[in-house]
């Protein structure tokens, strides 16, 4: 029984990590710019498609008709070799195998540019408008981004394999002194958790330990005063928007081996992540992370058969139920600050 509970806890971690990362990006945008960004799910999806694009580029093939070999139909056999393999040999094959690393490198500048263009091109004009307008225009943007992706990549999910050496499962139980095979967990999910922990840690370190982060935090507390001190806070906030896009995009890149990306991925996660942010408290970074992991783990516990036997259907609604209860009892969410979104 203890093993089962622990396993569900671990199962919740990877979903929780994704929720926490997306919610972190969402909260960064909200905390700095005060904008409710409904296009945030689309950023997650675009991140996932950065991985698709990278893999496509790496696996571009040259086709040569074989002189000797023939297909069963009598036509010359086509020999396909990926260009990178032809150029770099075995190292090229390894590159394709570990394409996700290149995806990460590719996604960082792409997401940064997309974030900055989005902020300067559209969201900038909505700071003084009501929150309802911000929700609506970013909702429209989310539809547009989703449809562009659909027009380019089609409507079907595109599977992205993880590197072969990282696809298996590992026996965590042995590390913890249990019997063998008591607790087997897919390796990639563990990697995802570690990855998200690193990103979260790096973000907090950036905000807490660097001067740049300190100015940003000051701007979150009182934008006007920071501006009066002669600091161009707008430019820093634009950068923070780009950074939030990068965080969310990387969450998407790393999630591709777990869930094959298609164009609805963003919308699916958006609703959940808004719930996460609201449960954590709008504008609170630790709140977003705690709520992300909490809801991920609760969701996986609710999927246990023992729980479902007591309350049927609980796995379908647990997140929303928690959100309703939290909002009814703690109006600002778990860690919300006073005065944020009160009007």
């Amino acid at each position, binding site marked *: 029984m203890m093993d089962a509970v622990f396993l569900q806890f671990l199962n919740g971690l990877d979903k929780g990590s994704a929720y926490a990362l997306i919610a972190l990006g969402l909260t960064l945008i909200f905390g700095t710019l005060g904008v*409710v960004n409904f296009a945030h799910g689309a950023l997650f999806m675009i991140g996932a498609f950065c991985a698709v694009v990278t893999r496509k580029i790496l696996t571009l093939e040259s086709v040569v008709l074989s002189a000797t070999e023939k297909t069963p139909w009598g036509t010359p056999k086509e020999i396909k070799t990926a260009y990178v393999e032809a150029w770099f040999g075995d190292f090229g094959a390894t590159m394709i195998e570990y394409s996700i690393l290149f995806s990460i490198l590719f996604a960082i500048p792409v997401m940064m540019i997309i974030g900055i263009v989005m902020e300067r091109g*559209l969201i900038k*004009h909505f700071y003084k*408008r009501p*929150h*309802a*307008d911000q*929700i*609506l*225009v970013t*909702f*429209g*943007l*989310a*539809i*547009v981004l*989703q*449809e*562009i992706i*659909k*027009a380019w990549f089609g409507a079907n999910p595109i599977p992205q394999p993880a590197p072969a050496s990282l696809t298996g499962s590992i026996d965590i139980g042995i590390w913890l002194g249990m019997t063998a095979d008591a607790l087997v967990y897919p390796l990639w999910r563990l990697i995802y958790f570690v990855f998200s922990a690193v990103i979260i840690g790096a973000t907090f370190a950036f905000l807490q330990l660097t001067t740049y982060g300190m100015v940003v935090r000051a701007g979150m507390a009182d934008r006007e005063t920071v501006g009066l001190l002669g600091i161009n806070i707008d430019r820093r906030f634009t950068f923070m928007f780009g950074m939030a896009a990068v965080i969310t995009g990387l969450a998407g890149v790393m999630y591709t081996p777990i869930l094959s990306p298609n164009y609805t991925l963003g*919308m699916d996660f958006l*609703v959940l992540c*808004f*719930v996460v942010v*609201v449960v954590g408290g*709008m504008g609170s970074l630790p709140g977003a992370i705690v709520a992300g992991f909490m809801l991920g783990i609760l969701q996986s516990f609710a999927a246990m058969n023992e729980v479902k036997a007591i309350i*049927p*259907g609980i796995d*379908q*609604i647990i997140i*929303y*139920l928690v*959100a*309703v209860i939290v*909002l*009814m009892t703690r*109006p600002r969410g778990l860690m919300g600050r006073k005065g944020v*979104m*009160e*009007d």
Partner: protein
Amino acid sequence: MFEKLKNNDKLIMLGFTIMVFAGPIILAPFGAGYPDLLQRFAIFGIFAIGFNILFGLTGYLSFGHAAFLGIGSYSAMWMFKLLTMNVIPALILSVIVSGLFSVVIGYMSLRRSGIYFSILTLAFAQMSYNLAYSVFTPITNGETGLQLRLQDARILDAVNTSGSLPSPMLFGLKLNATNVVEMFGMKLQFNWGFYFCAIILIAAFYVSLRIFRSPFGLMLRAVKTNQNRLNYTGINTRPYTLGAFVISGMYAGLAGALLVCTDPLAGPERMQWTASGEVVLMTILGGVGTLIGPVIGAGVIKYSENIFSKINDKVLEGYFAMMPESISDFLVFIVSPFVGSGWHLTLGLTFMLVVTFLPGGLVEGATRIFDWLGSIGKKTKSAKPGGNTEAAE
């Protein structure tokens, strides 16, 4: 509260009634004169009018109104299955049930405002959707959707011996019956189902007009303008906002019931949050807070959904056939992502443009154009006395 309508409002009602009743004639040249689409115009018009009473008047942005649409559909469907194929009991029950649900959901959601309200309504709607998909399968028939069957009870109806499924009717008048009339050189289709929906649409529009002009409506507008100030003056706004929420929930239930009256099938996807988003789009596109705006928005979106989504590359090539091939290929290449299966892209772009530049929607656009035309008219009038030289030439 029930004083006589002002002359202006009488004109509005009269114009609206004529436009709706003449719908099959006016819309036939645009390829939208067929019953299925006309019914959708009317039904989603009702849905959007109801949504506008909440969002347009109080400013509370609900992202979960599709739940009430689905609830209305399911209750009407059960009335068809258990009681009778007559649509009247189905409509009454669905309005009552969706009203009850909206009292509960509204009571809880309205304790918060702003984004929290949006998320709460969204959470409730997603819960209903997920439950309809899974646990409530005995009531909702899950993914397949609730359908009519021959062995349903229908205790009020005569025993069905025909062996085919009965269709919804109004005291014996079959709603899917269509009269095709040749007029003005076109085939006009007058469908009973559409006229039934149209009468309800006009009634719904009338109720919304009365609410807009009533002290209750004024109070709702005050909530939108400054709720804090109302609270400070000692007015409890909760009953007013809850009233608006319940009314709009009942409108949504009514629309859901009409959906199954015209096509007896109720599925859970009707309750998904994208469906809630759609009614938001309709209301904003048409003009939020205006009387006629939501109906126009619903019409425009449903029209484009039906017309744009049918245009594929072949049809486009037909449009550009008279041009040289290279130009026509180029135009097809440019336009094709925006039509057919990609028409949502057009929708999203239009919506963004409207929110950015025309926050009042198409209605505001129309008034701006009229103002502009009016100002041009004035200029030419004032310029006339001095403009003799031009006239001489």
